[in-house]
């Protein structure tokens, strides 16, 4: 279990690393030009931490380690938010040894609830929530239709991307971009973009796992 989850987190880290400049440029336009740098620093630290974890660690331990590491290395707004998300996902996955699509859905829901509690934002304020909430809804409805984890994640990824695009059309009312008022219009939210990248990386990882198992 730990093995697989650690590899999934590494896949997320790789996606963040290779999109570091994209995320930073998006943040330069409506923020302070550090989102990619922050996230890349965080996931690099995560990678270091995970390599010291016992192979036998359960899902909750892995995710808690990710959450704590993000909280203590990312900083800014995204650090506490993504950190809290992973901590909440850890709690939701407590004791699990395999993760069904429904388990993953519950963890995603818990993560989003954590982000909303911590950041006091709702959907439509031009934040990561605009990618995450639609992604969760798509995931959930695919899951309820009995789809596989990869299929659920694909649906989530598609909706996340729609959500990212939607952020261009709205004014930010939370986070650093909110200081811009109307000038935030037309720009894509960096945090929504990183959320999309995380989901897309998860999907790709699970797909490759599925193919290996076949």
């Amino acid at each position: 279990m730990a093995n697989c989850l650690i590899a999934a987190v590494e896949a997320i880290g790789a996606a963040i690393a290779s999109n570091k400049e994209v995320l930073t440029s998006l943040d330069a336009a409506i923020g302070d030009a550090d989102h990619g740098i922050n996230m890349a620093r965080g996931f690099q630290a995560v990678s270091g931490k995970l390599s010291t974890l016992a192979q036998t660690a359960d899902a909750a331990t892995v995710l808690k380690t990710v959450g704590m590491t993000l909280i203590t290395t990312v900083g800014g707004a995204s650090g506490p938010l993504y950190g809290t998300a992973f901590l909440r996902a850890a709690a939701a996955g407590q004791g699990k040894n395999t993760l069904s699509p429904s388990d993953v859905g519950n963890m995603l829901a818990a993560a989003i609830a954590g982000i909303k509690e911590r950041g006091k934002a709702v959907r439509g304020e031009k934040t990561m929530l605009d990618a995450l909430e639609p992604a969760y809804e798509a995931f959930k409805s695919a899951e309820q239709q009995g789809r596989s984890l990869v299929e659920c994640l694909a649906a989530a990824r598609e909706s996340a991307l729609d959500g990212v695009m939607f952020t261009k059309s709205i004014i930010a009312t939370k986070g650093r971009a909110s200081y811009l008022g109307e000038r935030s219009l037309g720009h894509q939210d960096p945090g929504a973009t990183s959320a999309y990248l995380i989901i897309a990386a998860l999907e790709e990882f699970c797909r490759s796992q599925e193919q290996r198992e076949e």
Partner: protein
Amino acid sequence: MKKIINSPEQVVEEMLQGAVLAHPGYLRRVEGFQVLVRANTPVEGKVALVSGGGSGHEPSHGGYVGKGMLDGAVAGAVFTSPTPDQVYEAIKVVDGGQGVLLVIKNYTGDIMNFEMAAELAEADGIKVDRVVVNDDVAVENSTWTTGRRGIAGTVFIHKIAGAKAETGAELAEVKRVAEKVVTNVRSMGMAISPCTVPAAGKPSFTLDETEVEIGMGIHGEPGTHRESLRPADETVEHLLNKITADLPFGSGDEVAVMVNGLGATPLMELYIANRKVAEMLAEKNITVAKTYVGNFMTSLEMAGFSITLLKLDEELKQLLLAPADTPALVQV
């Protein structure tokens, strides 16, 4: 990117080391953390002040650690608020038993990270309270935003709450004074050239030969609008009118003034700006009790400046004029 650095990853660590080596009488590094505290911390029987934020605003915040101002300063990555574990450590190290006041600038990240740290410290039984600085009038204050940014006015909170803490006042009293400063302080800035976050390697924004950004934040965040560079007096007029209209400041008021350079602005230009500030305040029959001109809350090598006005009452004035002895600000 042209910078006098060794590597973008090491700037904060090496800066902290260089600062402690420069000011051993004032500063001590909390081993393993990006935290600077007074050499003699904790000061028993005194409320402690902890401030901080992203790096790149030097001398903020470590430069204000010392007698009459801060007890500890937490340095995040460049322009990135520090993480909760760092702030938590600072709180633990500086607490002298009377509790700790956190000075937080109003950014989502800063608020969340400092709040998480406060929760951790409170769980340890440390009294922690906080004040949130939001002096930037460039940002419209409406119910549907996160409010205003905190910028150079933060230094006045350090100075005045720090002086209050030095009197032995209790946490609630120090907080009251700090909040009085927040209520009465307003700032606004502008930039004529951008800065480059070392890890980003390129400027956060670009301005053409004659363009300036009005209402600029201290992290390269865009301001209210761009316009053509105007004579200094007109720029000052624009910024100062926004500021005085906001509180509002008016005839008969007494104020402290800060003309703050963003990092690459010659002191000559700041004095030229201050000349107009002083002239306008005199016209409005506003008395200036004290003026600060220099680099207090910078934005790496950004060129530009901000103006801060703080409305004083007798209490704030006495505390502002009280002695301070820190690497970046000494008053006798």
